[in-house]
């Protein structure tokens, strides 16, 4: 047997032991996902290559919700996709639980972070419950798969879709699909959650419910990154807000410090007013009209 054979064999053995090793729950405040000097370049058809992300630094720690906000095309979803490992950055790197994404197998990553995509399609008429149960796939053949049924039930209940469990996914409305997809992500039980516009298709009540769920997860020690359009919701629920502007982080900090009329008016190129609710004192963000 040659040296290369042995080393590749050893690497395979290492990969075997690595995937069977289950991730530990991170300590509160421990950074789970970090981007360093992240640059993503998109070569769009005939046009010139565009820097969608330009040396972005970003991190999220266990126990906090970070909202990614910014105008259309600022790079929110691109940043989320890069954090999820969907894009290969031109420069910089993304670390999950202290190691570069390239170190992990897809299965390792699936046990550490869950991703809620923006659109929800399922190719075949699986029931809502079957779709949610797919979130348990990363834990198959580990001791944690004993919890599958209980976790699926809890996730269905948490996303308020228990009554839809036996409906076929393609027959659900947009808002119902979004909530079933959220339940699937919750069922994955990871310590990092990446949610791409989870409130987009939802009515006001369900929007609040989704953010309360995310907050509850953060309270239990999860790190949550959520792309939002509604700045009022971001102000109300996020521990930190990162404002993206043309592929760069324009500001990153607690909502009270970051969400100012001056910054938002510049970033959104529209006058924005930020003030406190006269009764509750909650921070409100509104576009100036008329």
């Amino acid at each position, binding site marked *: 047997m040659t040296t290369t054979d042995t080393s590749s064999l050893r690497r395979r053995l290492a*990969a*075997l032991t690595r*995937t069977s090793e289950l991730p530990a729950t991170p300590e509160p405040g421990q950074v789970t996902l970090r981007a360093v000097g992240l640059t993503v370049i998109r070569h769009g058809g005939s046009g010139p290559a565009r820097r969608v992300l330009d040396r972005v630094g970003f991190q999220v720690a266990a126990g906090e919700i970070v909202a990614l906000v910014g105008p259309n095309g600022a790079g929110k979803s691109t940043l989320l996709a890069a954090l*999820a*490992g*969907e894009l290969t950055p031109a420069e910089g790197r993304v670390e999950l639980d202290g190691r570069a994404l390239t170190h992990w*197998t*897809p*299965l*390792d*990553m*699936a*046990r550490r*972070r*869950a*991703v809620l*995509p923006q659109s929800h*399609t*399922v*190719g*075949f*008429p*699986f*029931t809502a*419950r*079957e*779709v949610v*149960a*797919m*979130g*348990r*796939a*990363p834990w*198959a*053949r580990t001791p944690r*798969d004993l919890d*599958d*049924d209980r976790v*699926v039930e809890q996730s269905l209940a948490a996303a308020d879709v228990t009554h839809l*469990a*036996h409906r076929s996914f*393609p027959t659900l409305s947009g808002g119902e699909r979004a909530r079933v997809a959220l339940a699937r992500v919750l069922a*994955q039980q990871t310590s990092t959650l990446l949610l791409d516009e989870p409130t987009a298709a939802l009515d006001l009540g369900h929007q609040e419910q989704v953010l309360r769920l995310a907050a509850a997860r953060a309270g239990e020690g999860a790190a949550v990154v959520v792309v939002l359009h509604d700045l009022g919701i971001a102000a109300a629920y996020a521990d930190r807000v990162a404002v993206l502007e043309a592929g760069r982080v324009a500001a990153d900090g607690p909502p009270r410090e970051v969400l100012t009329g001056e910054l938002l008016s510049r970033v959104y190129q529209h006058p924005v007013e930020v003030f406190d609710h006269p009764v509750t004192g909650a921070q409100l963000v509104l576009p100036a009209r008329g």
Partner: protein
Amino acid sequence: MSGAGTTDRPTLTSAPGTRVRSRTVAAFAVAVLALVVLAAASAAIGQVPTTPAEVAGSVLHRVGLDWGPMPAHPSGDITLWEVRFPRVLLAILVGAALATAGALLQGVFANPLAEPGVIGVSSGAAVGAGAVIVFGGAFVAAWSVAAAAFAGGLATTVLVYTLARANGRTEVVTLVLTGVAINAFAGGLIAFLLFVASPAARDQIVFWQLGSLNGATWDAVGVVAALTVAGVAGAAAVASKLDLLALGESAARHLGVDVEKLRRGVIVLVAVLATAGVAFTGIIMFIGLIVPHVVRMIVGPGHRVLIPLSAVVGAVVLLAADVGARSLVDNADLPLGMLTSLVGGPFFFWLLRRTRARAGGWG
């Protein structure tokens, strides 16, 4: 890691699970029973008269049990073993291979219209096999025909996969149109092969395009059996991952599926199964389309049940079609591919209309 099966784990169903499971068991039982009955009936039909009891008797005597009647006709026993049994087995294997290939393709494209015949994989395999027959002369071994069919099938599957996908998903219209283009091109190649072929090779190719089990040999059965068993086993091993692929490629990846690896594996499996389904029997269309579709309506879309049950039902359907091909017209052996196309064509049309209506247009 690529697909150690979790076939026996009831993860995806539990509350309504008992009902679904009993339904699954019933479906399997009915399918297997139908397979046995049809196989006996199919073996009994033909110019040399035999009965299903004699068929069973002949089989039992061969395995050393002295039960049941032997065929009364003087050449009954030899007819059964030299002509009919290879044919029955070939029908079972080819049906299972085609239906499994269809279920795999539909799973990997997350699209119910994918089928080896429709998207051109079968014609690609036929071109490969045809080339060997034409250029290899009369002394071609069964294995080399199969190898060429495999090469053609593999190349075509890769081609369809790369051409029909954009941004990680396959649109219905692109997939079907890609199939049209590939079938047209393969048709051209087959026409060319016909043109340059010797009369004997030409007959063989024509017979093939019609699709038939006529002339099944034990050699062919051996080759097809090896391919089909390997293909169906591989398909069953990747079944649970195909479920996740229904969520879309990136969602499947986020759930821990190595999508690239899965895709490569499925492409090879489809080529193996398409080879099994084409090499000795020609192009039999639509089995891979109809069977998984019907099975999905009965037991739901979960691939862990869908794939093995499709294999059994595919065998049943092709066996039934072959019985029809031999008995619908007296003293004539109708081309099998002709029958399946006459039934499958309209079905495909209906499915197309329905998919379009559901998607609110093409998409």
